[in-house]
């Protein structure tokens, strides 16, 4: 028993040391964002000798942080909402229809996951440019296209545990398909909707490449402004690091409150 307890102590200590190692990049980012340019030059690893908040003020202005944050929020929330609504509808229709056409369509959605973004990137931008859709609306539509395959796959899987007798009972009571889905099925899909929401929001909130090709400066999201901001301040680490810290704060806040759901959502998305 004594040996077991000592083992646990050793394992716990290793865990904590590893966690500190994992966090060290964040530590270095945060402490250096409070230093002056000179302060970083003379001392990278330690705490600042004098704390300054000027870096944050300038980064906040140059990143156009409020605007970028609202743009990121708008695009992420609208995209994720329509992905959830439309993918759940499709997942339901495909799961309840056992015909060859339905199976074939399901395979088409799955096959789409094999196509990497870079393979369609150039013609996609060219085509959407021709019809004047290189704007937030076009971007949201693209997110539906890229996000729906995995989401439909997850909804389709979740439908297996919802008995078809529910549909039949509701049909006898006179409900049509539309009512059955929204009143009975969709509420039962809530756990998988949370997973779909988490997986898509992580990806869309952080996406850089697609919005960089689609959005103009006034609609820019946080990653886009971060890219320009960083380019502007190369080697001015005190400002660059303050900007990076700012950009991470919203994510850490959400993670703090929803870590259980996030980790569960990611697990379900990867394992299924």
């Amino acid at each position: 028993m004594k040996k077991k307890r000592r083992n646990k102590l050793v394992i716990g200590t290793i865990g904590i040391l590893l966690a500190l190692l994992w966090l060290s990049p964040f530590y270095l980012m945060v402490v250096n964002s409070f230093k002056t340019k000179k302060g970083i030059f003379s001392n990278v690893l330690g705490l600042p000798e004098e704390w300054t908040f000027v870096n944050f003020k300038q980064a906040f202005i140059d990143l156009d942080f409020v605007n970028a944050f609202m743009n990121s929020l708008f695009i992420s929330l609208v995209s994720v909402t329509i992905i959830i609504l439309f993918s759940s509808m499709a997942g339901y229709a495909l799961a309840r229809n056992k015909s060859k056409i339905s199976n074939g369509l399901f395979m088409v959605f799955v096959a789409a996951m094999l196509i990497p973004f870079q393979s369609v990137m150039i013609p996609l931008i060219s085509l959407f440019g021709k019809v004047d859709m290189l704007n937030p609306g076009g971007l949201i539509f693209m997110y539906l296209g890229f996000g729906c395959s995995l989401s439909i796959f997850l909804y389709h899987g979740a439908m297996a545990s919802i008995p078809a007798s529910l549909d039949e009972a509701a049909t006898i009571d006179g409900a049509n398909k539309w009512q059955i889905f929204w009143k009975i099925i969709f509420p039962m899909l809530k756990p998988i909707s949370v997973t779909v929401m988490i997986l898509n929001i992580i990806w869309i909130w952080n996406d850089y490449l697609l919005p960089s090709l689609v959005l103009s400066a006034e609609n820019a999201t946080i990653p886009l402004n971060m890219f320009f901001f960083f380019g502007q301040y190369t080697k001015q680490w005190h400002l660059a690091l303050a900007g990076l810290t700012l950009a991470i704060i919203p994510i850490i806040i959400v993670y703090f409150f929803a870590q259980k759901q996030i980790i569960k959502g990611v697990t379900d998305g990867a394992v299924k």
Partner: protein
Amino acid sequence: MKNRSVSFWLFLTPTLLSLALVVFVPFIYGFFYSFTDWNGLKATEFMGLANYAELLQDEAFLSSIWFTIKFAVASIILVNIIGLGLALLVTQKIKSSNILRTVFFMPNLIGGLILGFIWQFIFISAFDAFGNALGIEALSGWLSTSETGFWGMVILNVWQYAGYIMIIYIAYLESVPEELLEAAEMDGANSFKRFWNVKFPLVAPAFTISLFLTLSNAFKLYDQNLALTNGGPFRSTEMVAMNIYNSAFKEYDMAYAQAKAVIFFILVAVVALTQVYYNKKREVDL
């Protein structure tokens, strides 16, 4: 729902339409234009396989493929070993288990672009400071050579992705029945034997998923590459995704870039399908 029923098709219309317009139409359109002199707006001439023939002579493209393969191999090995190690660690009954999971997973919530910028600072400034403090010369000048650029990319990727892969291994490790481990312990199996003979075979499906995810992630990596090294020095750390992007949006050679994109698709698809096939076969054999 019947095929002929209107509601079946109505329920599918939004996603089918978006998938078609965003993925399949561009895919077919791009495939066709990769055989022409397309400049992004129009094509005037059918060129046959000329773009593809040019690819075989393109040293920058070939070396980006080679770099990507090397990166993928190093990443797969390290991410999976460390990810499994972390999973074994946090599934021990220790108090800090939940906090540790939270910490190791955290990098995955942050975009590759931001992570790349943070690590640029770590490699350039913090490594240098460490090197000076400890008298290790090898820690100076990181990212300025292709070798340190390569390992910089690998370290960043392992730091980010090991926590993600850990989550997958945890899901499988936690589904190993407790009685099975206890029975093995009673029969005198030590902790290594319990891992190797009891847990390992039951966790095998997690390898299918993890290898597949790590590999496809390594092939498609762009943001981290852009933010950490931007392909430098002298394009020596440029990965395939970045090479395609640069051909298209820096050199404006659209048809040629699309030919690369087609090859890229074939590479990714072949790798993915092979892996699924072999892993399914192995699982059946078990």
